[in-house]
């Protein structure tokens, strides 16, 4: 295609997309000169250029539209019919442009006579009205109807262009010059295929980087480390940069819905207003393309089924105008899109009835389901809530198609609704399709990648832990975790691979469904470049693509959605009503984590209880001390500042974010790139880490996150300094037994208590504690209350009554601390009852126990 035509079409496409919104605005704000000018200008430009390029149909059409808009510019009243007509013309222009694209720059043959007539008629009508008004006549409506229209437009054709040409060039000049010359805001056009190619190449680069990273882990390659780290840094930056070029604000897509909603409201005789939020959220254009249709469908649904007509709304005491709110935002590496309406809401009764009718669920199953879970049944194949299929949203397409489309791009969709109040659909999609964060899992001798987005948490059944168990219902194994039962899909069984341990379960949630995938091992979290499946592999059902790992091997990427639909709930356990959630008392350990970024791709987090504050300080105030440590002048004192590995003080910014920890009157800063959020999360430590300073990895808000060990930093930053100065007595004389069913807390407590020199052992429940205490002597027992099996209260009662170590100093640590809880704790035999996160008091207790012990020795 001619380069010039291509450029022209690209430009026109953009202006037209903008115009759609403006024309709709025109209706609410009919005589805004600015709007009319804009519309006129676009029409005029298209007309002018298409004439030059020999695109006659396009020229004719825009010429007529321009005439009409010109009349509006001169003061004619914009009617609703006029807006409709302009919209129709714009549609025709868009169709034409599409055709020209497909035809390699040539205009298709065709006839726009009807539209020409309509436009001309409207123009004539207005002109006649103006003339009559000028001569003081009252206008009868019939008189406005055009009579001899055939001649007039033909005659006008010859003279109008010159006139309006002259006029618009004037308009153009009069417009304030946009600050186009600012080099920073200048843009270039580039083809999508070129960007895709660039993206692919960067993808390859990421793979090579991963590979080199792998090699550099070999301790013999010490010198390589530094170089690899900077390579990694550059590649990450490059990757982000290239990804950004493919990013587009969601604005254009959102704006198009203004028109959709307007047309829908008109044809449905409803009053609907669309509110947009977060239009500047940037999304990969490939993702944008793929979510357009599902979104359109859902908006149609909102307008057609969810929102009531104006009378009904008034009768219900609602505002006459129905609201649809479309909102986009970024959240932890994903994009969230919400579609919210203030309509009827989804009736649980109706969904239930329909689901029963279609045999999707049984009455017993329904009885155990929460209202929103029942509503999620609308995503099931073949389900359609509207009793009558209408032309607006019917089309035999249901929400299952929407769900499929979203899941195809690795996204999820959920629904929440309140009857009579409205419905919110929440779509979560990955930022980009090209690069995927995955868990590399081992099954037999093979490895598979499982997208991290679907995985809620990873449970290892290797070490006995009563927070979960494997139950059997009719011989089918199920994972019981915090009172919920999950069906299990065993990859080694499905794939016919030998099972090694089968003791690692990835708990996945997709829409309303939750299930576990059983693998032998989780090796790593890796960003992978998704490569499409060849035709020979496309019918294998359970994969979404393949990729090349750092070590050069090709591996398959599991598609959890497809896996679940192929091997999901075994029919004999589909009835979840028999699953009694009795062990609710094994309360979740909800902890607050500060999630932050500091180099690398993985977010990091520290436990909030040990953070005393988060501050921004002047970068200049941080300088390197004589021993190589960073020091910050901080309120008349010097505070050591550390950087997590892979991150350095960012001298290019004037301010540096610091997380400040305090510990026994000493403060320490941790320099970070930025604070993402503070998250309430039930932390399950998934992969324990061998790396110093990192406790392990956990899923926080659906994302794999490195949990950093503050005791390590404290130790490193404050060194033996505090130990030698502040610790009058040798803490290693005190032996402590920490009992907690949460691996996370065990690790946190163990490392922080050990970092002060105490001798620590851990047990994961009461039984294990007792057997450990039988084996050796401990001075202090630090025990959680809520534990499966023998809980903390039972444990201390048992010890006080029957031993072993009947007179041990015992402190209860719990997340529940009402007076009643405390009283029960003291009654059972604890010496102290503290909050889990109150480290200072826990250490005070240990210190007191130590002094007491040393005192005893002294006597």
């Amino acid at each position, binding site marked *: 295609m001619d380069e010039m035509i291509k450029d022209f079409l690209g430009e026109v496409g953009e202006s037209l997309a903008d115009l759609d919104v403006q024309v709709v605005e025109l209706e609410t704000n009919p005589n805004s000169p600015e709007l009319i000018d804009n519309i006129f200008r676009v029409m005029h430009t298209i007309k002018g250029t298409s004439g030059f390029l020999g695109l006659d149909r396009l020229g004719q059409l825009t010429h007529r539209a321009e005439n009409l808009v010109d009349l509006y510019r001169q003061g004619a009243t914009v009617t609703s019919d006029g807006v409709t007509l302009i919209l129709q013309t714009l549609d025709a222009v868009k169709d034409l442009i599409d055709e020209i694209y497909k035809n390699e720059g040539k205009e298709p043959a065709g006839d726009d006579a009807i539209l020409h007539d309509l436009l001309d008629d409207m123009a004539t009508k207005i002109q006649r009205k103006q003339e009559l008004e000028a001569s003081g006549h009252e206008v009868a409506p019939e008189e406005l109807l055009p009579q001899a229209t055939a001649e007039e437009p033909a005659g006008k054709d010859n003279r109008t262009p010159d006139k309006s040409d002259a006029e618009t060039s004037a308009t153009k000049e009069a417009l304030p010059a946009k600050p186009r010359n600012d080099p920073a805001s200048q843009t270039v056009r580039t083809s999508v295929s070129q960007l895709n190619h660039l993206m692919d190449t960067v993808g390859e680069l990421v793979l090579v980087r991963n590979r080199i990273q792998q090699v550099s882990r070999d301790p013999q390659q010490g010198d390589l480390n530094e170089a690899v780290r900077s390579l990694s840094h550059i590649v990450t930056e490059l990757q982000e940069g290239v990804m950004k070029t493919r990013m587009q604000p969601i604005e254009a897509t959102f704006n198009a819905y203004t028109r959709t909603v307007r047309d829908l409201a008109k044809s449905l005789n409803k009053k609907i207003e669309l509110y947009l939020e977060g239009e500047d959220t940037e999304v990969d254009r490939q993702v944008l393309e793929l979510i357009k249709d599902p979104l359109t469908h859902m908006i149609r649904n909102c307008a057609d089924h969810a929102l009531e007509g104006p009378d009904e709304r008034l009768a219900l005491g609602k505002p006459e105008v129905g609201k649809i709110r479309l909102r986009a935002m970024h959240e932890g590496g994903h994009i969230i899109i919400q579609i919210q309406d203030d309509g009827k809401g989804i009736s649980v009764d109706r969904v239930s009835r329909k689901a029963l009718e279609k045999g999707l669920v049984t009455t017993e199953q329904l009885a155990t389901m929460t209202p929103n879970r029942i509503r999620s049944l609308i995503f099931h194949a073949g389900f359609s809530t509207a009793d009558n299929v209408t032309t607006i949203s019917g089309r035999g397409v249901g929400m299952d198609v929407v769900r499929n489309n979203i899941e195809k791009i690795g996204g999820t969709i959920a629904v929440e609704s309140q009857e009579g109040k409205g419905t919110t659909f929440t779509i979560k999609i990955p930022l980009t399709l090209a690069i995927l964060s995955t868990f590399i899992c081992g099954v037999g001798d093979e490895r598979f990648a499982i997208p991290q987005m679907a995985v809620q948490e990873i449970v290892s059944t290797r070490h006995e832990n009563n927070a979960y168990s494997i139950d059997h219902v009719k011989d089918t194994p199920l994972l019981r975790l915090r009172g919920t039962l999950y069906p299990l899909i065993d990859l080694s069984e499905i794939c016919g691979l030998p099972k090694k341990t089968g003791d690692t379960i990835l708990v996945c949630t997709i829409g309303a469904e939750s299930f576990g995938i059983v693998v032998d091992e989780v090796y790593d979290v890796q960003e992978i470049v998704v490569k499409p499946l060849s035709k*020979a592999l496309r*019918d294998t059902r359970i994969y979404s693509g393949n990729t090349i790992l750092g070590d050069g091997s090709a591996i398959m990427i599991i598609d959890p959605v497809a896996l679940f639909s192929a091997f999901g709930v075994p029919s004999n356990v589909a009835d979840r009503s028999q699953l009694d959630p009795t062990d609710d008392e094994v309360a979740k350990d909800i902890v607050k984590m500060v999630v932050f970024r500091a180099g690398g791709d993985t977010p990091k987090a520290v436990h909030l209880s040990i953070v005393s504050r988060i501050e921004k300080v002047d970068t200049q105030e941080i300088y390197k001390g004589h021993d190589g440590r960073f020091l910050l002048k901080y309120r008349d004192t010097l505070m050591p500042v550390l950087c997590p590995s892979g991150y350095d003080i960012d001298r290019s910014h004037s301010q540096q974010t610091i997380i400040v920890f305090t510990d026994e009157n000493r403060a320490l800063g941790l320099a970070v790139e930025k604070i993402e959020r503070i998250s309430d999360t039930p932390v399950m430590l998934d992969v324990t880490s061998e790396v110093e300073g990192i406790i392990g990895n956990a899923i926080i808000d659906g994302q794999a996150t490195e949990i950093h060990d503050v005791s390590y930093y404290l130790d490193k930053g404050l060194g033996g300094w505090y130990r030698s100065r502040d610790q009058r007595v040798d803490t290693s004389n005190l032996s402590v037994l920490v009992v907690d069913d949460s691996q996370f807390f065990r690790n946190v407590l163990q490392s922080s208590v050990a970092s002060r020199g105490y001798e620590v052992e851990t047990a994961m429940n009461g039984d294990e504690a007792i057997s450990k205490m039988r084996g050796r002597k401990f001075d202090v027992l630090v025990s959680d209350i809520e534990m499966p099996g023998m809980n903390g209260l039972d444990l201390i009662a048992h010890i006080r009554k029957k031993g072993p170590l009947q007179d041990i100093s015992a402190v209860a640590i719990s997340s529940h601390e009402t007076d009643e809880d405390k009283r029960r704790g003291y009654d059972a035999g604890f010496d102290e009852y503290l909050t889990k996160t109150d480290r200072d008091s826990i250490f005070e207790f240990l210190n007191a126990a130590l002094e007491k012990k040393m005192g005893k020795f002294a006597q």
Partner: protein
Amino acid sequence: MTIELTDTPKSTYVIFALGEYQFGIDDVHAVRDIVRGLKITPVPLASKEVMGVLNLRSRIITVIDAKKILDIAGPPPDPETARHIVIERDGEAYALVVDRVSEVKTLPDETLDTLPRSIPEVWRRCSKCIHKLDGQILVILDLARLMDFLDKNTEDDL
């Protein structure tokens, strides 16, 4: 250097063995590469013809067991002698695993013959013709039709 003066029509073939049979591919240009000894990652649940995937210079290639397509029984290819013939189909790369690649050879079209009736139906479907060489039959395969099983698989799915 000898210059062929005769203009007897002739063609070049990649000749390889599957079990005890000799096959040839006349579309030499379609063969992108002949490699060996690459690590194959098995793909569970794939159709029987698929042996797995491998990484050839950062490209993922689907590995096809040619013997499975042609219903030739026998042990799995010996990694020592087996070769992967890399071909393209609709922009996707496939590697056909064969037991041995003997040579790339130019043969005169004179020795060409039509397919004898006795050859198995699957072979007939995937072959063009045969060459008779020293009492041995060399079956010339039609690459496109050999790979047709891919379309068949999808149709079965529908």
